[in-house]
């Protein structure tokens, strides 16, 4: 049976991993490769690198650290942030990344999703969706990389999820903004609704604070993967123990 994936997310700035206090007072956590290998050794199933420099400053991702990471790493990894065109994606994928993830550029120009899928295959194209509850509904937000620029888009989350699948996205990362950074658990209710709308793999993001949160999101929202940053970086949850707990709960995980 397909194993549920545990995906640590690392924020990269100028080629080093920084603490996820996004866009201010960055504290360097360490070298990209060193941390990537540490998570690989602990049993991470996949890694996401979010290039915050590229995303915020409108620069394209520096491929030096991508190539260095690809040479050493023997598990899949995805690069997010700063990818706005087929040419940007090509540089990152040719440097050895397995997938690229786009968010605001997809909202600005949805046709980009199809262009990327045709050029590289759907399996390489991840669409990130930042979503927040609005009354009984869920709305997609854009430019969430900076507090000053964050704003609601015209899209409803459930419609946008179905649309990006239709356009050729091979995976969706749903970041539930109200839960993000709070550590009180994933937004299971919202993830369940998106799960019911799409048949591509769905990755839960935002809210992991305890082992039970992972068990809940896999069992109730039937997501394929769970992404987390803080709990892993602060060493509050160790991946081997997390996987043992998931296995004990009857979930399939990679050994």
């Amino acid at each position, binding site marked *: 049976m397909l194993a549920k994936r545990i995906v640590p997310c690392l924020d990269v700035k100028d080629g080093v991993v920084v603490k996820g206090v996004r866009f201010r007072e960055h504290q360097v956590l360490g070298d990209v490769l060193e941390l990537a290998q540490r998570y690989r050794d602990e049993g991470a199933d996949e890694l996401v690198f979010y290039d915050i420099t590229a995303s915020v400053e409108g620069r394209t991702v520096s491929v030096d650290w991508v190539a260095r990471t690809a040479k050493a790493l*023997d598990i899949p990894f995805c690069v997010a942030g700063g990818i706005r065109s087929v040419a940007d994606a090509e540089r990152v994928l040719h440097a050895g990344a397995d997938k690229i993830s786009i968010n605001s550029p997809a909202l600005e120009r949805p046709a980009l999703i199809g262009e990327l899928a045709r050029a590289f*295959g*759907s399996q390489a194209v991840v669409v990130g969706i930042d979503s927040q509850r609005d009354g009984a509904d869920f709305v997609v937000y854009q430019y969430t990389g900076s507090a000053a620029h964050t704003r609601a888009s015209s899209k409803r989350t459930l419609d946008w999820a179905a649309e990006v699948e239709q356009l050729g996205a091979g995976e969706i990362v749903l970041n539930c903004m109200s839960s993000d950074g709070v550590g009180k658990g994933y937004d299971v209710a919202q993830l369940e609704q998106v799960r019911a709308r799409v048949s591509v793999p769905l990755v839960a993001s935002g809210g992991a604070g305890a082992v039970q949160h992972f068990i809940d999101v896999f069992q109730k929202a039937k997501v394929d993967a769970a992404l987390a940053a803080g709990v892993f970086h602060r060493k509050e949850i160790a991946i081997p123990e997390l996987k043992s707990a998931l296995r004990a709960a009857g979930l399939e995980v990679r050994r």
Partner: protein
Amino acid sequence: MIAIVDTGGANLASVINAFERLGQRAELTKAPDAIARASHVILPGVGAAGDSMKRLQASGLVEPLRKLTQPVLGICLGMQLLFERSEENDTACLGLLDGTVHRIPADVARGVTVPHMGWNALHRVGPASALFDASLEGQQFYFVHSYMAPAGPFVRAQTEHGGPVPACVERGNFFGVQFHPERSGPAGAELLRRFTHL
């Protein structure tokens, strides 16, 4: 020398890197004579069957690949190209294995998402194989694909995703893996190492 056939896909760097980590030199090439001279040939592939076959045809590689007698390993789409046809873009493929590659039916209620993406376990089936031996049983590898190979006497291992999915195939000197050994940790590295010793 190990030849990696330049199918133009985006993950060729990953395959080259995997052999470098094993301390083996692999050369990316689309020259028919270099491929014919190689001790081992890797047919990688990411993207769509139609584009990949067009590239092989444009490079004049279809017949030379069919005639190879040294060990050949198709990876992911490269494995699917070994078959007669693919429903993806309704493409005529290399015809080294019988049958048609078809789309994986999604069934979200039963946890069957498409693409089939992530780590899944192998179950050995079929006759003994020099490459796909009993040690593969239960091992987990990284899969990413939306189309799957047909069942047949060439299957040496399968995985489960809504039903049995062929994961390792073999006929004579032609081998194929649906998963990505270059992204499958130590288990993947070991499989590639053993392939280079065939």
